[in-house]
């Protein structure tokens, strides 16, 4: 049997990581959560993830840079953008850069979970 799908959550707001990590783990994913985008980038370099869930506006490399990095290193990783209202334009840019979807905050945990499930189970792009 294949191992659990791996998900990396990156958001500089600890509350987002604290909420998403246990919720997604409970749904059967292997989850690593980071509030520091540099550390997250390092981890993305050494480990392939099925799904990257990232915020856009952050200190250090921002979401768009992390997205570019992932798309270079592991093009098959699905990238989901979670973002505040203020950065919807940037989110569009992220879609053009290869993100599969963006979910504005606040969002329901189940909405993100359902999206990740469909990405992991569905056909690869």
């Amino acid at each position: 049997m294949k191992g659990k799908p791996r998900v990396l959550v990156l958001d500089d707001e600890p509350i987002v990581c604290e909420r998403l990590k246990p919720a997604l783990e409970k749904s059967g994913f292997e989850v690593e959560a980071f509030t520091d985008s540099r550390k997250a980038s390092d981890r993305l370099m050494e480990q392939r993830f099925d799904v990257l869930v990232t915020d856009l506006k952050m200190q250090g490399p921002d979401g768009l840079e992390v997205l570019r990095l992932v798309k270079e290193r592991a093009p098959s990783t699905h990238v989901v953008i979670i973002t505040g209202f203020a950065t919807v334009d940037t989110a569009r840019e992220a879609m053009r850069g290869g993100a599969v979807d963006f979910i504005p905050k606040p969002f329901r945990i189940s909405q993100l979970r359902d999206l990740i499930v469909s990405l992991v189970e569905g056909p690869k792009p």
Partner: protein
Amino acid sequence: MAGFWRRARPERREEDSVAAVRRRIEGLRGLVDGNNHVLELIAKAGEMLGGEYVFDRNSLAAMAEELDAAARSVVFDLNAITGDRYPELVEAVERVGASVRATLESRPFAPEGEVVVPLDGIGEELADAVGEKMARLGSLQKHACCRVPEGFAVTAAACRLYLERAGVPAVAERWRLQGRAGEAADPGALSAELQARVKATPVPREVARAVQAAVRGLGRAAPGARLAVRSSALGEDGEVSFAGQYATRLGVDPPDVLEAYREVVASLFSPGVVRYRVSAGLDPADALMAVACLTMVPAVASGVVHTVDPTDPSRRVLQVAATRGLGSAVVGGDVPVDRFELSREAPHPVVSRHVADKRVMDVMGRRGGVERTEVPEGERDRPSVSDDDLARLAATVLRVERYMKSAQEVEWAIDGHGELFVLQARPLRLDASPALRRDAAEATSRAPVLMRDRGVVACRGVGAGVVKTVTGLEDALGIEPGRVLVARLSSPRLAAAVSRAAALVTDIGTTTGHLAAIAREFRVPAIMDAGDATRILTDGAEVTVDAEENVVYAGCVSELLEEQLLRRDTYSDAPEFRLLRRMLKKIAPLNLKDPGGPDFFPQRCTTYHDIIRFAHEKAMEDLAEGQRLTPRAGSRDVHRLEMNVPLDLLVIDLGGGVAPGEDGVPLTPDRVTSRPLRAVIEGLTTEGVWARGPADMDLDGFLSSMTRSHALTDQLALRPDMNVAIASADYLNLSLRLGYHFNIVDCYLSESGRDNHIYFRFAGGVTEMTRRTRRAALLRQILTAHDFATEGSADLVIARIKKMPYEVAVERLRMIGRLIGFTRQLDVLLRDDRLVERLAASFNQGRYGAAFR
């Protein structure tokens, strides 16, 4: 009430009256949109408290901005419609916006109000005023979880007064200026200066008097009692960050309470606290606290209990540390104490026991304070608590845990009469171990699933218990606490039962409704709108409701419950959730409930909800008033409609709403060409819908209607008044004042169907809250059955439906017409809950007359 046209521009009224109505209708549409937008945002903010949403501080700030902008646009539209009649409302928006922003910036904040609050008047809603410790103790007492000492809180408002008197704000300002100038000020020196100022300043007289009166009150209840005076920090963050840094005075003699208060307040600026604030980037002088004054329990034994073993929660034990005398010895941790482990299962037998050799104990000193004395030789190695008392302690703290919905650390004491007191309770902050999470995952994979992903989560959490189904007429008050409540409808009458339930599942209902809000208030896991839960979950069966995952399992999945008790992400304690809760208090409560009441003024608007309610009401009033013009002789635009029901209706034709007729001949329904108005008239005039004569009022209904400020003589005669229909071929705005009710229908109806919408608003109504609540329940039940999305409170029901085909829209409008006639006097008739179902059924079956017999 002077009409706008008569006051403002009488000379132009006749020339452009219909054109003006047209313009105002446009303004109104903008206002209604803004109003709806604000309501939606408020509802969403309430829903976010349920834990299903992920959000951060930025989301809250964005939401606050959006709310502010929407409220401003509503006020702008109102002033545009009314010729700038409400400049004070602009100030009200400024005021609310400023207080929301202060909340978001987490500046210490003291709600206006009492300087002293007795403990028995405290609930969690006062946390901002009395601090966390006192708010929790107060609500534990209120919900009968345990006995707590007598006492009172000196509030944050008192502290602010005191600090102002002591000149703290000036020092704070100087510190800020120094910071901006790049001068590195010394936190140690700042601490010394602030503490010296506080200690040198007498407690303000109004605070001192209130404290002394409260102390005298305690003395009368318990002569000779001494007090414990300590901080009750504001905000969970404060409680955690400054634990042990603030001063505590035990065994304080009543005359010394003010001095103890001063010492505790001064510790707000102790060197450690000031340094911490500086390092955390906070303003070190910008601080407040509430202070708890509780009578000391003359304890023969006391200690601390953890409701789980923090190192291995799967052991299912409570851990008790106990000693003779006062608990300071246990909390201090400097002397050997007895340790017990008890089973979490009743009757809570002792599973392990370590009795220490207790040579010393703390007792109250003869001249105040606490003294350490020797334990008599023969008693040193005897247990400080009996097994019976331990079992009682276990049952009590588990009640506290159930109410708080998380593992607890509880300070307790037993007095010479064997009375058990809870002195303090706080969440045991632990992370569920990976092992425990694994156990929970395995247990849930084995447990039979009864329901999955049906309905929507209104409040996250896990609860287990025996199912109690409520499908109709059951007595809600008789429902035992701790049951899993499974209800057909989200009836408001279940509110009390929900607050005590282990979990809530409903067939029908919304996450923004009243019952969902109650569930969130009491942190009761809740799944709403699950369709046929009452059929799937059988009465009397034990189930586990996992409202984290939206699953219901058969049986009790104890591993899941244990994991839940220890979840660090118990969301409701997260700073963002606390912030949202505080923010909601600034935006959501509706204080302006009665448009006829003395408080219905812009100056009284304290929340966004108040503001939009005021604006909407005034806009509707202005519109309705504005059309109360006497039609110009021969006017082709304004008509009085004659129908075979006792309803005066003035029809203003915006174009295409009325077929031409002979001058001077009243308008009859057959000449109405406005599609939506025709449909409503058809409904209104349906045989049997319109009860003749006033409904009989029973005494309760009559008496409660007396307390309302309407002119009763008019109301009892049910004289129709101020009814206006503004209509074009495909648009209708209808405002009807019928007896006690104020109905508004705003709709657009075209053959294409794409833009079809119906907005129905029902407000007002005499009689007391319970009947109004029933009436709202009835209306929502009927409207929901006809596919409307509904919202609102007891005295306000708003229903919307959009984008339906032409034929469906016509039928729905006819239904609205029938409903308006049908519900005209319902609140007087709705004497008990059973009638809600029965009347809804008779309406839906077309037996309108049945209700009035």
